[in-house]
C-alpha cells in the first residue's frame, strides 16, 4: 500500500447543491516520490490540496483517502498535521501580533504533544530555527515579526518552506508555491524544497507552469482537468505541456 492513497475522490463545496469539483480523482504517492500536478485554472488543483488538509468548506461525496492505511478524511485538521500532512499555502495567511518564532514553536510543540512526544527545549528549538532559516536565507529579524505580516510574496513562500523544514512532515503539498516569485526567489525556495526531499517523504507539487519543475524535478507529472487526472507521465510530460498548452486536454474532457 502506498503512503498516500487517493481513490476515486469526489467532492463539492459544502452546502452547495451544484456540481462536483473533484470527479473521481485517484493518485498514489510513495515515500521518496515527488508528484507534480499541473492543469489549467479551475481544474480543481487547489481544491485537492484543501481537501487533503481538511478545510471545512468542502464535502467529500465519494471515494477515500488514506495515509499509511489510516482514513485521512475522518481526521481533524490538526490531527492530520500531526500525522505529517503539510500544506504550503498559495496565499499564506497573516496572524498579526504573533511573532513568527512564537508561531513556529507553538506549532511544533502542538504536533509533538499530539504524537505523545516531549516539548522541544528552548536551546534545541533556537538551534533548529537558526540552522533551517539560515539555509533559506531568512533574516533572524523577520522571525520576530508577526506571522506573514508585511512580508513580500517571496518572504511568505520562504516562510512556508521554513515551517515545512521545522515540522518535518511525511507528505508535503505545495500549492502554487511558484506564484508571485521572481526568478531569484524561485531558486531559493526550490533549493529549500529540494533539501527536504528524502526517501521517507512524499511530495505533491501543484503548479500551473512548467518553470517550477525545472528547479524541483518531479518523478511523476499528472495533468488534471475538470476534477480528474487525465494523463500521467514522467518529467518530460511537463515540457510537452509547456510547448503545447492545456488546450488538447480541455477539449478531450469537454
Amino acid at each position, binding site marked *: 500500500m502506498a503512503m498516500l492513497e487517493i481513490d476515486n475522490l469526489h467532492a463539492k463545496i459544502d452546502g452547495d447543491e451544484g456540481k462536483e469539483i473533484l470527479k473521481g480523482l485517484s493518485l498514489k504517492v510513495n515515500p521518496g516520490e515527488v508528484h507534480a500536478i499541473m492543469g489549467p485554472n479551475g481544474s480543481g488543483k487547489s481544491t485537492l490540496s484543501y481537501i487533503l*488538509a*481538511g*478545510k*471545512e*468548506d468542502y464535502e467529500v461525496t465519494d471515494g477515500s483517502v488514506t495515509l499509511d492505511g489510516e482514513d485521512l478524511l475522518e481526521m*481533524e*485538521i*490538526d490531527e*492530520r*498535521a*500531526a500525522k505529517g500532512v*503539510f*500544506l504550503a*499555502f498559495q496565499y*499564506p*495567511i*497573516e*496572524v*498579526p*501580533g*504573533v511573532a513568527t*518564532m*512564537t*508561531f513556529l*514553536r*507553538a*506549532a*511544533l*510543540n*502542538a*504536533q509533538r504533544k*499530539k504524537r505523545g512526544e516531549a*516539548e522541544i527545549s528552548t536551546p534545541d528549538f533556537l538551534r533548529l530555527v537558526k540552522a533551517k532559516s539560515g539555509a533559506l536565507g531568512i533574516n533572524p529579524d523577520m522571525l520576530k515579526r*508577526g*506571522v506573514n505580516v508585511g512580508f513580500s510574496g517571496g518572504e511568505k513562500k520562504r516562510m512556508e518552506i521554513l*515551517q515545512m523544514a521545522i*515540522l518535518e512532515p511525511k507528505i508535503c503539498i505545495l500549492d502554487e508555491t511558484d506564484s508571485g516569485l521572481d526568478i531569484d526567489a524561485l531558486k531559493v525556495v526550490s533549493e529549500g524544497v529540494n533539501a527536504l526531499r528524502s526517501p521517507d517523504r512524499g511530495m505533491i507539487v501543484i503548479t500551473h507552469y512548467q518553470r517550477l519543475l525545472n528547479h524541483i524535478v518531479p518523478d511523476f507529472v499528472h495533468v488534471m482537468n475538470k476534477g480528474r487526472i487525465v494523463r500521467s507521465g514522467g518529467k518530460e510530460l511537463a515540457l510537452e505541456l509547456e510547448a503545447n498548452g492545456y488546450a488538447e486536454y480541455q477539449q478531450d474532457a469537454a
Partner: protein
Amino acid sequence: MPAVQETVEQVRSIDVDQYKYGFFTDIESEKAPKGLDEDTVRFISAKKNEPEWMLEWRLEAFRRWQTMREPDWARVSYPAIDYQNLYYYSAPKRPSQLSIDDIDPEILATYEKLGIPLRERDALLGIESAGGSRVAVDAVFDSVSVATTFKEELAKAGVIFMPISEAIREYPELVKKYLGSVVPVTDNFFATLNSAVFSDGSFVYVPKGVRCPMELSTYFRINERNTGQFERTLIIADEGAYVSYLEGCTAPMRDENQLHAAVVELVALADAEIKYSTVQNWYPGDKDGKGGIFNFVTKRGDCRGDRSKISWTQVETGSAITWKYPSCILRGDNSQGEFYSIAISNGRQQVDSGTKMIHLGKNTSSRIISKGIAAGYSDNTYRGLVSAHRKATGARNFTNCDSLLIGDKCGAHTVPYIESKNSSAHFEHEATTSKISEDQLFYCRQRGLDPEEATALIVNGFVKDVLQQLPMEFAVEAQKLISVSLEGSVG
C-alpha cells in the same frame, strides 16, 4: 511563548462555564442594616471611627445623590437596581489590621486560594521565585481592608500605603487636601453614591523625589451576599515621585447580581509618574446571563503638575456589566496621559468602557490603545473622548481602537468623541473591526494547533501591544485570564 502554552493548558483544565474564583468563604460578618439612608452613612462613618469632617463630607454626598438620576447613556441594559435592597457595609467579625495572626484563618485561606500571599514571609518566598521583584499587597474583603503587607519597609522610604480608613485618621490633612479633588463628590451618580458610603480602599502617598521601591497592589474581594462594594482609592505622587500600582478583583459565583461602584483618584504633581494597572475578573454571570457583578467605576487621574505622567492599563474580563472610563486630566504643561485597554466579553456580558483625555495644558500628549474582543452573545463598546481646551496649544493625541469578533452573535461598537478648541491640536484616530477569520484558524490548525490553541494564539497576538504595558507577573496572569475568558467561544 511558554505563556501561550500555559494559557492553553489552563483552558483545558477548566470546564466550560467554570469561574475559578467563584467560591464563597463562610465567615461571620457584621453588616449595616439593609438599605440606604442617612443612618446607614452614619453607621459606616462610626464603624470607621471617622472624624466629624468626614461624616459631613459623606452626608453631603448622600444628600446630593438623592437628587441624582442613574445615567442611561451607556450601551448596556440591566434590570433596575434596588438601592434599598442592598447591604452597604459588611465586615468580617474578627478585628482586622492588628497583626497577621489576628486575621480570621478562613480569610487567610481565601487569599491563599486566590494566590495572594498576605504573610510577608510567604510573599517573599512566593514572589521572589516568580520574578525577583516584590509586591506589597493591601487586601480588601467586602467592606474592609484585612491586611497590608510591607508597610514598615515602605515607611522607611517615606511611602504611605495603608487602608484609606486608616489614612483618614492618621493623615487627615493629606486626605482632606486630595480626596474628591479629582473626582468631585458631585461628579456622577455612582461616584456620588461611593462618596457617601465608601468603606475602604487603599491610600498611597509617595513623597517628593521618591521612587516607590516595590509594586503596590490591592486585591479586592466581594464575598458577602447582596452586598455592594464601594471602595475608594487615592494615590498621590508628589513632585518627581514614581509609583506603579496594581489592582485585582474577584467575587464568588452567585445567582443575584452584585453592585460594585468604586472611585479611584490619582494625583501626579510636577515630574511625577503613576502607572496604574488593573486586572478585573469579577464574576461575569453564567452562560445565560444569570448573576454577575455590575461594575460601575469612576477612575480618573489628574496630571496636576508640569511634565507629569499617568498611565492606565486595564485588562477587563469579568463583570456582567462594565461601565468604566479611566481618564486623564492633562492639566500640567507637557504632561502625558496613556490608556491601554483589553476588554473581553463572552457569554451575555456587556462592556461599555473607554477613556477621556482632557487636554488643558500646553504641549500635552495622550495615547489610547484599546482592544475589544467580543465572543458569545456579548456586547463590547469602546466609548472615548479626546478634547483640547482652547489654551492647550500643541496638544497631541493618538487613538487606536481595534475590535475583534469571535462568532456571529456578538457585537463590537466604537463611539469616539473628539473636541478641539485649539487649532494647533493634533488628534489621530484609527479604528478597525475584524473577525477571527476561518482562514486564520485553518492556517493555524494546518500547522497542528487545535481550535482552542489557535484562538488563544490569535487573540494573544491581537492584544499584544497592551499586554506589553503590564508589569511582568501581571502580564502572564492576564494572558492566562484572556484564554480562560474565551473558553467555549470556539464553536
